[in-house]
């Protein structure tokens, strides 16, 4: 299998200076993710699942360990990569999906969804065309495509967010509870899109409150509960 990510003894904690306190998040986490593989992160609230995702994306700086990413430019340790390299990889190879949309005033839904394609060098019209298709897939009504999502309901905003986050196939995709508060149709569309990306070779690491939604996508489970067995096969997914 082609490895995409090799996480090696990764440790994260936070130093809160005003409290003069060090708060550990997780310690010595090691696992690998191959192309087309879906890894579910498991653990009680506070076990550090979301923290791990954000550390891999470099929104958080790790304390120690390595995050070896097989980029199209060769192997790079995301724990130590220069900011400008991380920013470049986020535009081209590494995606992060949350349940929240950062809507901007006076930017239409289709323009927001098309933006990752525009940044990747697509022509305006082709990008908008693909964006409309993605909005349709996630069940956003055509009337809303040219409207500003700042005024949309939470559910509709989330669909726009997913359409945007998943429009450009990435090598590595982090998923932080993207199904929370989605209606059944949108959830179905999300799972179908994830399956498509998985088949195309995207490696995925996800945190799901209700893993049943993505049950058939999961290849492996990594348990972040301290002292848990390092890795489990997918039969062990707790339902």
């Amino acid at each position: 299998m082609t490895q995409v990510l090799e996480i090696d003894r990764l440790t994260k904690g936070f130093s809160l200076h005003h409290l003069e306190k060090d708060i550990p998040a997780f310690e010595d986490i090691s696992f690998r993710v191959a192309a087309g593989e879906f890894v579910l992160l498991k653990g009680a609230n506070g076990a550090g699942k979301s923290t791990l995702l954000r550390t891999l994306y470099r929104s958080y700086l790790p304390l120690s360990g390595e995050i070896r990413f097989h980029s199209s430019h060769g192997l790079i340790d995301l724990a130590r990569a220069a900011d400008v390299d991380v920013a470049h990889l986020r535009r081209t190879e590494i995606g992060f999906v949350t349940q929240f949309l950062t809507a901007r005033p006076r930017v239409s839904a289709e323009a927001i969804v098309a933006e990752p394609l525009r940044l990747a060098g697509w022509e305006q019209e082709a990008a908008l065309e693909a964006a409309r298709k993605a909005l349709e897939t996630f069940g956003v009504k055509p009337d809303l495509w040219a409207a500003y999502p700042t005024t949309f309901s939470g559910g509709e905003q989330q669909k726009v967010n997913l359409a945007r986050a998943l429009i450009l196939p990435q090598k590595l995709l982090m998923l932080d509870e993207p199904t929370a508060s989605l209606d059944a149709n949108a959830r179905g569309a999300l799972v179908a899109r994830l399956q498509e990306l998985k088949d195309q070779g995207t490696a995925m690491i996800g945190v799901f409150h209700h893993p049943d939604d993505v049950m058939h996508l999961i290849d492996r489970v990594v348990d972040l509960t301290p002292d848990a067995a390092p890795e489990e096969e997918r039969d062990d997914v707790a339902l």
Partner: protein
Amino acid sequence: MTLTLDAPRIVETRPLLEVHGVSKSYGPVQAVRDVSAHAYPGEVLGIVGESGSGKSTLLRMMNLEEIPETGSYTLDLADVSDNLFELDRFARRMLCATKIGIVYQNPHLGLLMKHSSSGNVAERLLVAGERSFATLRAAATEALDASEFPLDRLDAPPIELSGGMQQRVQLAKAIALEPALLLLDEPTTGLDVSVQALVLDTLKRLQQDRQITMVIVSHDLGVIRTLADRVMVMRRGEVVETGLADQIFQDPQHPYTQQLVHAKL
């Protein structure tokens, strides 16, 4: 302790802007002490810090309005010399007019308040040598339009305009010659919150459409968060921390940055 980051390995382009080891004092006050900064082409660098942190002094150095006692400044452009701080006054003025645009917090610093708005923008083109009235007028109109200035008010002097509109005239003037570098000094401070959002949105659009390299200075973390790719935190004339914008806001390392981020509403 956190890890020390590597030098860039994937991105091979050189930074457009590089300031290295600059220091400047005003009498006994050291405004900027041994500061280095860089911005890659198309990148937005945000500089935050409270009043007196030296951030505006640093920006004025980037606009060659202030020359530091030590340090160097390069812009990676064709026909631009090595250390811009060593240019004579004429060369400096020409470089600023053609390669660098600036928007000040106070529009009086950037505009002639009683001349027409289009005239203010055209003046920038005149400095660069354009003489045809028709070209001047067309270019000024184009720049004002791109800054989302209402074109039926082209001839109104800035003194008759609202604060938000004055900032749009400054912005039009700054981008009229398609500068390689756009400097923004608290561009929305003092505007109503709703007007502020619209001006920020215009800046964001311009940045995306034209891929201009920007340096924005603000004490307002919300402004920096909206625009910046990378953030530099200054305090008492020194840089205490730099990082990707989301990392600075979500996982600030330095005690001062933590205090700043946590103090935000």
